């Protein structure tokens, strides 16, 4: 089941399991400290940064 309604499941970009874990952590961090998460994401290479930003968007647009 897609955990993020309105968005397709799973970003295709941003390869390895370690990258995926890192992006999931950044997306969680964005909920508590958006500026810190964005600062961290901006240090990543372009392709991973794009995937990380999309994960942040997904995470923030989810209701709890």
């Amino acid at each position, binding site marked *: 089941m897609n955990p993020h309604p*309105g968005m397709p499941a799973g970003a295709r970009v941003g390869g390895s399991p370690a990258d995926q874990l890192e992006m999931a952590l950044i997306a969680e961090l964005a909920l508590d400290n*958006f500026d810190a998460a964005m600062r961290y994401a901006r240090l990543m290479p372009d392709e991973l940064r*794009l995937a990380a930003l*999309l994960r*942040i*968007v997904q995470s*923030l*647009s*989810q*209701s709890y």
Partner: protein
Amino acid sequence: MHCFRAFTILFCIVCLPGPVVPGQGRVVEIASQGKDLKRTARRLRIGVEQLKNARDALQEATDLARHSLEPSVFSQLPQGWIRLNRAKSPSVLEDLFGWLRVSVRNAPDAQAYQRGSSAARSLLSSLATLDSERAVALWRQWPDPPASLGDSAREIKEQIDKQFAEQLLMQSGGDNAEEALAMMKEQASRRLDYSRNARLAAQLNQSGKKAEALRVVDQSIAAFQQQNADPRSISSYLGFVRCVRRNWRKPQ
């Protein structure tokens, strides 16, 4: 006298235009944006600050996406825009489409052309949920592959044309049927595809255009009679016959 003064003051308050405040239009615009923000946040059941942050991240991702031709990104971004900032999404999506169009015009190989075209198809499928006529009009502007890429790239374009029309047809419960049918008719006139013709005829029949549907069926039958029979076309024609039979079966 007092009465006259009171009348004059009242007249000034009611009839004279208020002082022109510089930037008043901007104040109204900001107020309207604030309302939109609150409304969207309520719809998504998230806080206003959280929505603002999500929009900032989405804007940054959109700017970054211009360096990527990844189709999955171009399916996520439009959906994010439509969900988080519906008012701004048509202009953002058109802007991205324009960028994709420029980037495939000089595609170095068929693969790059395919990636760009798939990304554009994803983008316009999302735009079609807002404005299907505009999405179709933009797709018609999609460039053909450069001649140097050969026939394989032209086949890719035809394939993606077909996918876009079919996707449009299935989207939003057939609300986009008119645009999709027009595209499918154009495609049918360019290249013979029995299964597509069968679906087109079925759609025309369902939307009450029986004479037009029968014309598509007749044209397909006539084309098959003139064609050299090879296993692929026979199998495709068999699918066409089954589909037509299913859709024109008389009620028991």
